[in-house]
């Protein structure tokens, strides 16, 4: 019984270690300027105020950056699923020569840092007229998210009994019909989780977004470039807005966390 209490106490300490810094940043985002520069600070907020947030959204470029971040992340989701899910289905349902080589290729992509892609692609995108557009950033983010999408969707399709599909074929469905009417609805929650995962990868990415944009910044790229010259309230409000969607997304996919990570890392 003493063990139990000890475990629980330790677990709570780790919870506080994760939550306390986020809590403190949230407080700062919801107070007024004065409280941010107050000395010494109390642990609890002095007064609730939207002044800091209003100031943040009043700065030119913030709304645009926020919109760009959402557009880029949505494009990444579409690209990653459109390219990755068919590959995932092939890995789950077919036996073919080169399957292992394909798997290895997907895994090898993860040994390469993003910098190596972003710099030459920026040069290339300038020639193609894609530079400084959400498309360019989304393409690079897809290169990041696609390997995950292929591996995760393959594990999702593996989890759907093959016999169901075969039964549908014998009842006269074509392969495509069986997929659309049977497999897709069953795989949907998993595919949504994969989509959210791709969204978070894109939303959080800093380096490529900064290199590939100039005026059409994403939120991360925008914050990174203005950070050194901006006042503390602005930085804290920006940091808060970077974290909020992440909290919601991790909550939404928490059931799939281990499918996403456990299997994607084999």
């Amino acid at each position: 019984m003493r063990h139990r209490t000890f475990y629980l106490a330790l677990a709570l300490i780790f919870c506080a270690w994760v939550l306390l810094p986020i809590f403190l940043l949230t407080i700062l985002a919801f107070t007024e300027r004065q409280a941010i520069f107050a000395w010494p600070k109390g642990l609890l907020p002095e007064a609730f105020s939207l002044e800091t947030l209003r100031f943040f959204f009043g700065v030119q470029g913030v709304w645009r950056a926020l919109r760009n971040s959402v557009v880029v992340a949505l494009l990444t989701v579409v690209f990653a699923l459109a390219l990755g899910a068919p590959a995932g289905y092939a890995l789950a349902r077919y036996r073919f020569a080169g399957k292992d080589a394909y798997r290895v290729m997907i895994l090898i992509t993860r040994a390469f840092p993003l910098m190596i892609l972003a710099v030459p692609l920026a040069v290339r995108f300038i020639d193609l007229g894609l530079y400084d557009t959400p498309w360019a950033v989304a393409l690079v983010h897809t290169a990041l998210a696609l390997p995950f999408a292929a591996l995760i969707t393959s594990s999702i399709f593996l989890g759907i009994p093959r016999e169901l599909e075969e039964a549908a074929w014998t009842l006269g469905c074509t392969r495509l019909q069986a997929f659309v009417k049977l497999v897709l609805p069953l795989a949907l929650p998993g595919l949504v989780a994969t989509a959210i995962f791709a969204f978070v990868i894109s939303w959080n990415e800093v380096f490529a977004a900064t290199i590939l944009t100039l005026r059409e910044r994403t939120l991360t790229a925008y914050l990174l470039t203005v950070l050194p010259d901006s006042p503390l309230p602005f930085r804290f409000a920006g940091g808060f807005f970077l974290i909020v969607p992440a909290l919601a997304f991790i909550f939404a996919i928490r059931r799939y966390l281990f499918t996403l990570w456990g299997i994607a890392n084999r």
Partner: protein
Amino acid sequence: MHRERFTPYLLIAPSIVFLLFLFAVPVFEALLLALRAPDGSLTLANFQRMSRDLYFADAVRNTVLLVVITVPLQLVLALAMAVLLQGIARGRDLVLYVWTIPLGVSDLAAGIVWLAIFTERGYLNSFLNWIGLIERPQIWLSYETPAMLFLAVVIAEIWRATAIMFVILVAGLQLIPKEYGEAAEVFGATAWRRFWRVTLPLLKPSMQVALILRTIAAFGVFSVALALGGRDIPILAGEAHYWYNLYRNPAIASAYAVIIMGISIAITLVYLRLLRSRQDES
């Protein structure tokens, strides 16, 4: 039925074409960018210019130190959390959610979170004042306090990126059959011995994956350092960013990228060798 043979290839073809143009070609082009002089001939001039840069030596030292210090600490912490989670029955789901929250936090956001704590009138100084250690705000994040600035980056990185290792290790623990531990218990092994002799060896593949992924990712991290200390704490990936965005020099930026890639691949190979040879001994 003959068409069926080609179906899987049709399904994987789009992703192969995509990765060819947005992965294989860029990697090759980055090498060319870094190795070519303006007139097109091959040269090491870009690397020489990079290595003579004021920030280069510091960036290499900071980056390597950061990885060497944070990654092992993260592994130990993630392992402790994963084992701890096994001992929790009630509220396990909630604990799991809270511990994995940092998975969704970007390195930039993590830097800003810890800036709120380490900044001059931040929570750390307020706390130190409250327990009576300091009178006036202390400056931690400046080039005059390099050790503290470095420590702040280490703490922010441990806070943010331990969750990834934790999830990989928990997934690995779930694969270990309970019977092994139970058998050891029957023969009188203590919990501590069971952990060292049964759990840890069986967890080695997961630890290997966690170490490799984390190390590669750690070499690419730069916005934590940038958010906390600007260029007062230069980092390799940060220098690639400055050379492209500030100096508009893709060649030197690529040289930095090539160095980062080289180190990442070398470290991956070292891990694979080290962890494998130890496995063979036992």
